[in-house]
Every structure is written in C-alpha cells, then in structure tokens.
C-alpha cells in the first residue's frame, strides 16, 4: 500500500525528505502525474505529492521571467502569460493524450514536471529546450537540505549552473519547490509553409535548406503519409501525400516575406501550400504533443539524432519498425510507434541510432516493459559512473525517485 505525503509548504517538503533520508525510506516524487508513464516505474511505499505547492509567486512581463511553485499547473501559467502576449518559448509538450492512451483529456501538467523532464516542442531548434529557459530554483536535496541556485535574471554565471542539472533529472536529485524560468514575447504572427510529396530523404534536404537559410525558421517537421493522415488539419490529412512543414513567426511583414522566400527555396521538393494561424497552430500542437502517434497503446520511441541523419536512421531500421514515423526538429527528433515486440526492439533501434550518434528513449511502453528495457540510452562506463556519483552528491541514500531513470540508481 502506498502512503502519500502531501506537503503544503517548502518547509514540510524539507521535513518529509529529512525523515525519508533518516529512515532510508524512498519517496516517489509526483506532481499531477501526467508524465508518470515516462521513465521507469518507481515502486516504493511512499509518495511525495507536491500538488499542495501551487501558485505563481512573481511575474514581471518586462523582466521576462516568472517564478512559480513546483506544482503550478501549466494551464494556469500559460493563461497568465497569454494575457501579456508572452509564452514559454520552448513549447512544453502536453502529453496527456499520449500517456492517456489517446483520450481527449487534458493532462494537468505542472511546471515542475515540465522542467524535470526537460522536454521541448518544435521550437527547440530555435529557442532551446526547457533547460535553456530555466533560470533558478529552490529545492530540497535528498540529503534533506534546502538549497538554491541561479536567480531571476537571464544572464548569470555565478557558480555551477545547477539549473541545467536539475532540468531533466526526473526528480532523482532534489525536489524543486519553486522554479524561475524565462518567458518571452509571443510572435505577432505565425505561418507554415507546406511541401507536399517529398520522400524522407528529400524532406531532410528540404528542411536542411530551410534551416540553413536566413529565414529564421522556428520549426521544421516531416510527416510521412501514414502520420500525416492522423492530423486534424484537413490540408495535411487530406493531402494524400507526405507533408513537410516549415514554420515562421514574427511581425506580420516579416512573416509574409519569409514565407515567400521559403516557398521559392523549397518549390523543387514538391507542391507548396501555406497554413495560416489557426491551422498552423493546430498542426504544431499535434506535432509537439506527439498526437499523430498517440492513439492505441503502441510502443513509442523518441530518437534524438543529428538532424540531417533522421531519415538515414529510419531507413536503416527499414521494415523492422512496421509502425508510424514522423520527424521534428528538422529531422533531429524522430518519433516512431510500433507494435509489441521482445524487449521493445531496443537493440535494433539503438544500433541504428548509434550508427549516426544520438540517443533513443523508450517514450511509451507498459510498466513491465520499462522495467526490463533501459528507458534511457545506456551510457559509457565512465559517464555512467560519473552520473552515479552526481546522484550520490545530491541524494546519497537514494530516497528520491530511485530507479526512475536507471535501474538501481
């Protein structure tokens, strides 16, 4: 039976972790649990539920930062930002549908979870990931000590950049109680240029051409026909062809100018279409939230590879996949879904990735599969040992989310 501790203050978080460290009692650290399916299962008797730590603490639009408690819902943050025409530029994904089996429910994701998983949407190629926008935090280490790092200003090199380390640490090093992150002006206008009918290989070239131009492309994705068919944007699903999408954002006159330039640049790769604000928004949300693969309970892999080699990795996998694939980040992020198979096919997939450099994450699979197969890319011995020492530096008794990233750590 799981006992849940639900602190309402940072002091109570400290008490709980002091107790856990003292007793050697591991805690499963949890926000709203919207990404519980991401990473390995933490099978321990106590859960630290952070939902009591919620609310925006400071928001100064002209200073371009916000400070919020760890379990503040992303929806609340996004609503406050929208009122000031601002956003989190890294486009944090909403994975409610993906982990909810394709149901239409919204996830209830929290800022703590978004940063702890260091995910980023299509604008990653231009604006960076969650870690690039994470300015500072207050936290309690697994040692049961309060510490902070960073600040509220965007330019800061005072001491080690522990914000980077905590972003993407899945709650295994410390429990963040308060987070400060960068916010940016939202673009005045958004448009997407579509290229229809390019095969994977040509699509990689088209995206490289767009990203290598001075048109400040903010997103580039390629949807082979099977994935495009799942879009709710009729121009995309009804194209009957693969769709390569390139997004530009900015002031109106600039967006129009760049769309024209991109249409000219890409016309050799296929027929050109254009999506305006609403359809463009829908398409990029579908890509960001991996909705094009979310249906059913297929295995989902996420491959981070050199952008120009995305197509090569998939070609190498060839018939082995048998599922749906699409590419984000100009080819550098490959999403693929496939039916059940022994060990989730991880050896084949990781061998294909290794040929070009990068890493593969088993992004969605049943809990028992995630217990058997390394969810995150196994590291070299030296790097693994270093990561273990880093874990011990923050959480020597391994009381925070043990095993969430790597078995036994």
């Amino acid at each position: 039976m799981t006992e849940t501790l639900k602190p309402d203050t940072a002091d109570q978080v400290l008490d709980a972790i002091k107790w856990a460290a003292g007793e050697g009692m591991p805690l499963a650290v949890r926000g709203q649990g919207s990404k519980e399916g991401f990473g390995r299962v933490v099978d321990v008797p106590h859960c630290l539920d952070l939902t009591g730590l919620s609310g925006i603490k400071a928001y100064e639009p002209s200073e371009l930062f916000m400070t919020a408690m760890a379990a503040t819902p992303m929806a609340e943050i996004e609503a406050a930002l929208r009122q000031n025409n601002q956003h989190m530029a890294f486009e944090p994904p909403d994975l409610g549908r993906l982990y909810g089996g394709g149901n239409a429910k919204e996830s209830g994701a929290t800022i703590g979870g978004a940063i702890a998983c260091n995910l980023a949407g299509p604008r990653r190629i231009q604006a960076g990931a969650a870690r690039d926008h994470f300015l500072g935090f207050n936290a309690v280490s697994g040692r049961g000590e309060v510490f902070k790092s960073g600040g509220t200003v965007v330019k800061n090199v005072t001491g080690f950049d522990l914000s980077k380390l905590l972003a993407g640490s899945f709650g295994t090093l410390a429990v963040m109680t308060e987070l400060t992150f960068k916010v940016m002006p939202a673009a005045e206008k958004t448009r997407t240029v579509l290229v229809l009918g390019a095969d994977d290989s040509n699509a990689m070239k088209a995206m490289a051409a767009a990203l290598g131009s001075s048109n400040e492309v903010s997103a580039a994705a390629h949807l082979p026909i099977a994935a495009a068919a799942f879009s709710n944007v009729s121009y995309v699903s009804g194209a009957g062809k693969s769709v390569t999408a390139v997004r530009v954002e900015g002031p109106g006159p600039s967006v129009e100018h760049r769309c024209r330039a991109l249409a000219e640049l890409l016309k050799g790769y296929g027929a050109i279409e254009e999506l305006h604000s609403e359809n463009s928004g829908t398409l990029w949300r579908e890509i960001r939230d991996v909705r094009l693969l979310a249906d059913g309970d297929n295995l989902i892999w996420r491959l981070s590879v050199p952008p120009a080699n995305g197509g090569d990795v998939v070609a190498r996998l060839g018939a082995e996949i048998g599922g749906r694939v699409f590419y984000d980040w100009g080819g550098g992020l490959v999403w693929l879904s496939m039916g059940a198979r022994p060990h989730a096919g991880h050896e084949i997939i990781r061998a294909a990735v290794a040929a070009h450099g990068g890493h593969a994450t088993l992004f969605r699979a049943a809990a028992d599969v995630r217990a058997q197969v390394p969810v995150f890319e196994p590291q070299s011995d030296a790097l693994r040992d270093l990561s273990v020492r880093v874990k011990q530096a923050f959480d020597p008794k391994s009381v925070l989310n043990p095993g969430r990233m790597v078995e036994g750590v």
Partner: protein
Amino acid sequence: MKMPKPDSGVIAKRAQIIKAMQAIVPGEGVITDSNELRAYDHDGLMAYKALPLIVVLPETTEQVSAILKYAVHHNVKIVPRGAGTGLSGGALPLADAITVGLAKFNRILDIDFDNRCVVTQPGVTNLGITQAVEHQGFYYAPDPSSQIACSIGGNIAENSGGVHCLKYGMTTNNVLGIEMVLMSGEVVRIGGKHLDSGGYDLLGVATGSEGLLGVITEVTVRILKKPETARALLIGFPSNEAGGDCVAAIIGAGIIPGGMEMMDKPAIHATEDFVHAGYPLDVQALLIVELDGPKAEVDYLIERVDAIARQAGATYLRISETEEERQVFWSGRKNAFPAVGRISPDYLCMDGTIPRNRLADVLKRVSELSEKYGLRVANVFHAGDGNLHPLILFDANQPGESDNAEKFGADILRYCVEVGGVLTGEHGVGIEKRDLMGEMFTEDDLKQQQRLKCAFDPSQLLNPGKVYPTLHRCAELGRMFVHQGKLPFPNIPRF
C-alpha cells in the same frame, strides 16, 4: 586575495614532475624556464600574478589524460588554461600547480553545414569558428568582446556571453557536445551533433564550471545563418531613468533586439574622445538598439523602436542607413574598455546582472559610491539582459587605490545582489568574486555546489582556490546528519 597555501612537497619535486611531463608531452610542450613561464603568470584579470610550477602544452586527448592521471597519483594540482583572456582570474596559476594550456588544440575537425554545427578543438578562437564558416554565410553567435583572441574551450569554461546573447543565447545555449577529461584521466563524451544529450545534463553543468570539473578537449557548437540584414538606432536620453524606461518599453512591446547596449555620460565622453563615433555629448544616457533579420522585419521594427524611443523622451535619435553607419554606431561601444583605459592608468571592470527595472536605481547607488571612494566610474550596460559593467577608474601606483577600487567594486556587486541580481553575468567568479559568493549563496547552497565538484573531482586538485571561498574536503561534504527517531512529519497531511 588569499590562495591555497602552496604545497612545498610538490614544489620540491619539480624536477621529477618536469621529467614525467616530458615523457608524456615530447618536444617543446613542457615550459620550465622562468622567463617563459612569465607569459603565463596572469590572465585577463591583470591585478593578480603568480608563476606556475610549470606549463604543459599537450596536443592530444591522450596526453591530457596522462597528465591528469599523473597529477592525481602524485597529488599535484592542475590549472587549465585556454587563451588566458578571462577577466575573473580563473586561469591564474598556482605556484604548486601545473598549468595545462590547450593552445595546441587549434584545429577545426569538422564543418557540417547540413547539421549546422562545427566540431572543433578547444584552442580555436571564438572568431576562428565564424571565419571557418562565413564563406557559406554562417556564423557562431556568442560574441564576447575578446572574440578575436579567446578560445572556444575557455568560452565553455566561462559560459561566455557577448552583445548578441539576448537574442541568441549565451555559450551554454549554443554548445551541442564536448569531450572532457576528468581529473581521474577518464575521458567522457557528452552530447554530439544531436540537439539534446541523454541522462543528466552534464554538458550544462560543465559549461560555466570555470575549469573546476574537467579539461575540455573537443567541442561541438551550433552555427547559424547570418541574418539577412542589420540596422541600429542610436538614441540619447536626458536621464538614465528615461533610458531604462525605453529599454523596458521595447521589451514590453514584444521586441527582442539583436543587441541593446547603454552607456552613461562618462562612458559616452570617453569613447567619443577616443573613436569619434559622432555620439551626442549633451545626453546623460545613450542607447544602441540593433535589429537584425530579414529586411522587411528590420525596417518594420526600426519604425516601432523609433516611436517607442520618442515616447520615452529621447532627445537624440539617429537610424543607421548604411552598413558603415551601423558599424560607426558600434565603434564607440566596442572600444569602451580601451577608451576608458586611455583616461585612467588602471580600471576594474565589474560584471553584475540586475533586474532591468532597477537600472536607474543601481546607477544612482554607483554614483554615490563613486563619491564615497573618490574614484571615477563609467558604466556600460548590456541593457537588454540587465548585465552591467561599471568600469572603476583608479591608479595602481597611488597607495591604497587598488584596494579602494576593489572595495568599491565589491560594494557595487553587493548592491546588485540586494536588488535581486547576481554577482556575475558573463565574466565568471574566478578569484575575483570568490569571496563575495556568500552574498548570494548560503553555506548549504555552496556546499551542494561543491559536492557536485566532488563527483567530478574527488581529489580536488583541479583549479583549486577558484570560485568557492572555502575549501571543504569531499569526505566532510559527503557526511550526513540524519534525523532518525524524529516523529515523521506531524504537520504534513497524509493520505
């Protein structure tokens, strides 16, 4: 500034150490002559000098690994060094340490336009990367003012910034991968040409770690296509407040300029006297706002910034109509440091970051302190991101002035922290701000950072005496005081 006490036992074994290093790095890569060592006795923080035990200039990762292995085995300290342009003393030598210079790691290894990245050795200069790719219209975005000389490895160690980092990010936002040798001699590769590295973000903490975590031997950085065009506005204000308001209004309007720099009256006069950029001399604050991107965008934004500046009470406004004119606008700002160097025998450059809206307040405080210490000050300011560089003018030959200048600088940084800012925005802590770390961090904050250091370098032989004011042994840092027997969380709701 107190540095760790040199280990006389190590100094006594100098000859032995030289021999061992010569076995690892053949040829002329081991420097032992005191005249030659003098070239390495300081970095960009000129006030502090110390001769290293010896300098070793390895050429391969294997050699770096062998040097560090030897050092750990024989308890010898290591100070890594790039081009030695750092402004906070991070590469200051220690009398009992081997300075490991990466200058011979000077080759670019791979230029990959399809993946928009460059793989390079760490001794290549920041500008060298841009020069290697500009024939295709690409560039490397972070542009510290020392870019002609500073090395990319040093940029990563310091997480260097530059005038364009408001829009394009600091070094940390532009690095994709590194190869790094740990103090144990182990070689780790983190990241690569792909966008995010798996596992803990060790690339993120290595960046800006000031040579305390490892020696970087290879770097992958992303490159960008040069903007189609760039134009600048030169805007004068009757007060620092009006200038600060204009900065806030530009950002409030959703505009993130490619660069946004401010100078106060002393800085305007010093630079104008030096480069004759045509700056107005009757304004209190001068703002340079640069917009870059497609021409249609730049022209549109120039008009908007023009309107915002007038609204904010600008009394002087010029817009660059040609590339030459844009360069002239920048010429003063880019020469601000040497310009100040002309009007004062010595100057100290501070580097705090403050919330933008506190600018006028902080400048007022700086001017009060200037009176208190009887030292002049000129302020240049990366206004877009709140990074303030007060230049404190002094004469080191006047008794007591150096100390006074340092105290003045420390007071400014304390005030930066007090208003919600930080000690350093881009120059690093090094030795310069080491003893001020307690102004910003608690003992527990600093100990947790040092525990991370222990995970990378349990021997604590890598660049000791830098960044952290108190050295704790790793065993001591690792000790835990457990709270057994305490009633578990009586106040916490349980379900």
